[in-house]
């Protein structure tokens, strides 16, 4: 065990700085060659001799303590109170695509409530043949589906409209998570209530509402409701976490996170949208001339390099370097990601770890031989509709700087010669 790891509360940043310095010392020596034998190898270590913890030491495990900096973080000045607030997924420290529930960002309007399965009721009412009540046990009796989807808050990257603000992918792009959901399609439940008497479905809406004190409610057009919306009760194989809407939340693939109503309690089939607070005063995008777009539900294609990035500097000197990041699109599959190391002058195609899945995160890698000079790192996502992630300037030209929501611009990290990185804007 190294002293750095053992020292409780050692600053991650200081640790990384140390690593950078150590890497720098080796730089230029070509293939590293050890001057002396490594005691971690030549000496018998405590863990190789004594015993570890038995089973059941932790009936439900948490990450090992050395990873205790990989946590959700909050930006205090953003909101008045943590009860109505948001925090950020540590995407800079994760790999693959599935977000563990325990570090997936939270967004509450009246706090995360505790609602038992036994106390859970789901009402379907309005323009249906028969208004219905389902218990949690009822929901488990309908045919189930499994899908992986990303959930992105419409305000992700929203602090960056006017300029580079927050130093870290967690803060600029961490209002996102990606989980495998198990649940029942909303279509199935609407069919159970019956829509033979509903009339022409093409102009109908469903209003979905949560059981918490904010009773967050959103209107969803019927064609989306019948397409891929899911009433989910499991995520990544286990029950939803309290902070993500236990026991039941709505999953609205590809659309802004605010519509993914947590603690879902009611679904009403209606003639028109309710125009609730969350779809008028919030989650509307003000343009330069003062008019505002409403019903901007789809999250357009977007990507970000998660490492290297300000919270994840390069910890070694020149030589082989793995550049990695995430890409996603609310319109479907990611088909390609380009990476630039010179601020967008030249681009090369990155490698997708797996073929893009519709409305889910895609992991990309670009392995380079870093020469140790500074870089302006960018990534650019392409989706199956042919859409290419735009620059911030291109977005600002159309929308101005006051849209708050739906900022899917290309992000730039300035990686310095010492391996540290900073959030910047470039010409």
């Amino acid at each position, binding site marked *: 065990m190294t002293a750095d790891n053992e020292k409780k*509360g050692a600053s991650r*940043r200081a640790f990384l700085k140390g690593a950078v310095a150590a890497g720098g010392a080796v730089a230029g020596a070509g293939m590293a060659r050890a001057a002396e034998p490594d005691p971690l190898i030549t000496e018998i270590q405590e863990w190789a001799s004594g015993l570890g913890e038995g089973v059941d030491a932790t009936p439900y495990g948490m990450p090992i303590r050395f990873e*205790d*900096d990989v*946590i959700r*973080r*909050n*930006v205090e000045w953003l*909101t*008045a109170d943590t009860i*109505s607030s948001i925090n950020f997924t540590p995407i800079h420290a994760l790999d693959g695509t599935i977000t563990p529930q325990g570090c997936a960002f939270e967004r509450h309007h*009246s706090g995360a409530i*505790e609602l038992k399965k036994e106390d859970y009721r789901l*009402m379907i*009412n*309005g323009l249906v043949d028969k*208004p*219905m*009540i389902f*218990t949690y046990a*009822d929901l488990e*009796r309908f*045919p189930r589906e499994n*899908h992986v989807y990303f959930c992105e808050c419409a305000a992700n990257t929203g602090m960056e409209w006017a*300029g580079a*603000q*927050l130093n870290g992918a967690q803060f600029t792009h961490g209002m996102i998570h990606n989980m495998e959901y198990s649940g029942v399609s909303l*279509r*199935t439940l*609407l*069919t*159970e209530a019956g829509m*033979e008497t509903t009339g*022409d479905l*093409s102009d109908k809406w469903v*209003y979905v509402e949560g059981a918490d*004190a904010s*009773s967050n*409610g959103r209107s969803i057009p019927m064609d989306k409701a019948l*397409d891929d919306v899911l009433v989910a009760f499991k995520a990544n194989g286990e029950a939803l976490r309290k902070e993500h809407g236990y026991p039941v939340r709505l999953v609205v693939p590809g659309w802004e996170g605010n519509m993914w109503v947590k603690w879902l309690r*009611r679904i009403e089939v209606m003639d*028109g949208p309710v*125009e609730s*607070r969350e779809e*008028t*005063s919030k989650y509307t995008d003000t343009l330069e*001339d*003062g008019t505002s777009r*409403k*019903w901007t539900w789809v999250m357009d294609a977007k990507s970000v390099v998660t490492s290297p990035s300000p919270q994840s500097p390069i910890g070694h000197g020149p030589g082989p370097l793995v550049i990695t990041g995430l890409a996603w699109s609310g319109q479907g599959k990611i088909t390609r990601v380009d990476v630039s190391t010179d601020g*967008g*002058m*030249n*681009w090369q195609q990155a490698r997708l770890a797996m073929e893009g899945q519709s409305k889910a995160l895609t992991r990309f890698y670009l392995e380079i031989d870093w020469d140790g000079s500074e870089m*302006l790192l960018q990534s650019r996502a392409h989706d199956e509709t042919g859409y*290419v992630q*735009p620059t911030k300037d291109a977005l600002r030209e*159309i929308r101005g700087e006051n849209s708050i929501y739906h900022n899917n611009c290309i992000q730039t990290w300035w990686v310095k010669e010492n391996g540290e990185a900073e959030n910047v804007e*470039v*010409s």
Partner: protein
Amino acid sequence: MSKSLKLYGVLGVASAALMVGAHNFADRFVAPMPDNARVLSPESASPDMMFIAAARAEAAADAKRLGVGREALPEEIAAWDVDVSPDGTGLPEGSGSVMDGEELFVDYCAVCHGDFAEGVGNWPSLAGGDGTLANEDPVKTVGSYWPYLSTAWDYVHRSMPFGAAQTLSADETYAIVAYILYSNYLVEDDFVLSKDNFLEVEMPNADGFIVDDRPETEYGRFSEDACMENCKDSVEITMHASVLDVTPDEEGAEEAAEAMEEANADTAADEKIEEMAEAAEPAAESEAAAEPEAGEPAETAALNMALVEEGESVFRKCKACHQVGEGASNRVGPQLNGIVGHPMGAVDGFRYSKTLESMGEEGMVWSEENLAAFLEDPRGYVKGTKMSFNGLRKDEDIDAVIEYLKSFSQ
């Protein structure tokens, strides 16, 4: 058959055919493959597995209702279906004046939104901002931004006050909304808002919204071939995040890490309870120890730890507004460390109602008795209190929460 067929062309037709050909399969829970060549072709079998699974579930669901669940009763629908639409659908009978609204607003809303709806700290301002939407810093309020009055009524009625949602009557809601309109200079001070004149109120920004036009204004432009080489002549850094320096620092991160360590072991509150239990053990043997006198500092009394624990869970109802324990600070309500035995209306830095302030000035303290009376009927005990909580119904809950509060002496 549902109209969803219209929207689900091929799949819908396939499931309709199945319904005729394979009756009752949903009951047996074995859905045959939809009669669809694309799905059945062997070369596409693998990548389409998820599609097949979805199609199966869909076919099973569309074919027949399962008969699971029960019909909702009218009383249940009435209790939950309270949303209000822009055309006034859903509005209950009732009315409220600007004058009444002002009083209610000061009691229930001003602690966050300010006496004049101008907003306190980071909490939203509800008034002002007229004509600022095209400015560099638009001020979005009910008056300057919200397109429909129904939204304000609906939100106040269902989601406010913060920490005591769904407690306002229809008349109270009409009055508060009338006051918000008045704060925005949209009505006169003698205005009375009711179901009947609701739609006559004109919202200044009603025409300020357009439906998402990204497909027309952006998607074409952002779907051109991407440049790969020599895309620009030069690149300059035009802005650094470090200049603003608003990123949460390492200290904050370490606090969070410590919080996580605590969560790993147990909750902080549980630890506190265990700590107190150990300290209280010797005293617990003489259970008949005299009740502390009103106003006597809490720490001299032996705590009933089981009751403290119950009180912790009752306190969840209070947590939205009150903090207690290490580092507790005033939020919507005052922090409550050492509140038992403390003079009324006297927690540092909290703006109390006039009533509570003067009760404190008269020398009244939060004895257990007084606290119990307050918690049973807050507005009855302290007329004009800012606390919008309706009170605890059960005596056991009141006793428990007081015991819990006693465990946090100063």
